[in-house]
């Protein structure tokens, strides 16, 4: 496979992990998060610093995971206090705070970012394989979670917290769990991104990227692991395949988000379900 192909696979894999992990928070548990890029970024920076200090890959992955999770739980506490659309506003704020903070910190590279991050030693192909493997594991984990009692409880919490309480479900604990798990995975994706590019700037982790990630979740079908994964891959490849989409990326993504919400709120997942349902009648 060409270097270009390997890059594409790597980016797609990272986006899959990001989208599926966001789906855990916003899809399974119904907590709309427009700040996912910040956790991605936190993980990326944690991994970058760890690699520079120790060039130890597993340690970098762990640091990224923990960083993402810790930040996520803090934001998760916010979700306990405010209602859903305000939570979304808070998560937007988290994005701006993250970027605003990092930009000013010299030790984090400030506006210039961090460059010259040591390589993992696996080579581009090795990295890509690691990414794909982790993406598959993330999908598997998400599918498992969906069928488990945790997924069941998440759906209840997402729909009606008070009603969930009357079923003995402690909504607070579950919301924190959703955030912690989802953001830990985002942090992990951040580490993979750092390994891939070996150079990170804070602009890659801005609010617009958070919107794109949520667009992947909405377009794929909120709550559906497969739908979201397919949407993530599709929306990564689309700008590459169609020049027009690449030049007007935000226009297309924003437009798709609006159209899907207006016309097909269930996303791809609902559309395919209908397709199969209709097929069966024949």
């Amino acid at each position, binding site marked *: 496979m060409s270097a270009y192909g390997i890059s594409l696979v790597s980016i797609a894999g990272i986006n899959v992990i990001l989208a599926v992990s966001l789906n855990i928070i916003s899809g399974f548990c119904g907590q709309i998060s427009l700040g996912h890029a910040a956790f991605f970024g936190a993980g990326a920076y944690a991994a970058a610093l760890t690699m520079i200090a120790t060039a130890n890959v597993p340690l970098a992955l762990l640091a990224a995971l923990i960083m993402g999770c810790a930040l996520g739980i803090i934001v998760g506490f916010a979700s306990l206090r405010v209602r859903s*659309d305000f939570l979304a*506003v*808070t998560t937007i704020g988290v994005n*701006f705070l993250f970027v605003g903070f990092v930009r000013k910190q010299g030790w984090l590279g400030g506006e210039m970012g961090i460059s010259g991050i040591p390589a993992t030693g696996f080579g581009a192909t090795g990295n890509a394989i690691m990414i794909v493997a982790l993406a598959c594991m993330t999908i598997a984990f998400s599918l498992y979670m969906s069928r488990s009692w945790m997924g069941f409880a998440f759906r209840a919490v997402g729909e009606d917290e008070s009603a969930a309480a009357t079923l003995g479900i402690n909504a607070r604990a579950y919301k924190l769990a959703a955030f912690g798990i989802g953001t830990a995975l985002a942090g992990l994706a951040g580490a993979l991104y750092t390994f891939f590019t070996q150079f990170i700037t804070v602009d890659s982790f801005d609010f617009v990227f958070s919107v794109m990630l949520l667009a992947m979740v909405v377009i794929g079908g909120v709550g559906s692991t497969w739908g979201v994964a397919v949407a993530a891959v599709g929306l990564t490849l689309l700008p590459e395949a169609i020049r027009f989409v690449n030049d007007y990326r935000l226009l297309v993504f*924003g437009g798709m988000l609006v159209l899907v919400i207006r016309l097909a709120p269930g996303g791809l997942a609902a559309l395919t379900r209908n397709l199969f349902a209709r097929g069966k009648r024949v």
Partner: protein
Amino acid sequence: MYYIDLAVTGVSFGCMYAIMAVGLTLVYGLLRILHIAHAAVFALGAYVTVLVANASGSILGGLIAAIVITPLFGMAIYRLLYEPLLKYRPDVPMVASVGLLVLMQDAFRVLFGEQGVTFRQNSLSFTTFDIAGVNISAVQIAIIVTTVVVFLGLHLFTTYTRIGVGWRATVSRPQIATSFGIDPIKVRYLNFAIGSALAAVAGGLVALLNNLVDPGIGFVVSYKALAIIVLGGLGSVQGTLVASLVLGLVEAYGTIFIGAWLDRDAIAFLALILLLMIRPQGFTGVRTA
């Protein structure tokens, strides 16, 4: 006099935020929707002001054109995007609104260029005065005067005209609109029209202040406006005014102290998040959680 200059800057920024945020708080008060795409309305107002001013040679003409066009845009957003989504939980129209903003910002980039547009002839932006040792520009004066006119006008409108009184009543209690003999749907359109016109005014003023309108103009201001309306108490026009001025001043003075480790634009969000943690209902609002 440096500190007073800062105060002038802070107040004028605060005024701009206020005019822009009022539209946002009105929509929230009426429909419980966070109309993030309001930023696109604001940006449209800015673009129209510059483009028409350049075409006609009159800055005032540009502002008037903006005030006429943006309400149409705002009302269209309500009719085409929000109205069909009212039946869902509030995050749904909000996410759609975000999508629309992202789309519009990129559309502006595509249509008018990455670098943006500037006024061809603009003496206003560069005129400054020295009043009693304080440095103040013509635009800043214009901003402050406009804000006073706008808020006074809103107050008079909603207190002394029949439509205005009915509108205000409906915004604070949508259920009683019919007892005022007012069509609640018409009130919604009026709401979007006025809010959008105000956003256009704010947009025009920002264009004058910077002598530039670029595609990113809406983004940061819109999120600050969100922070403002929550801090000021959702649906409260006075609260929005107060919160806007406070934010403007805090930003102006705050950069001296925290500028070392936090971006100016992030201050608004820090304030918002801290406030939401302590008082989820904002300064004056009712608890929504």
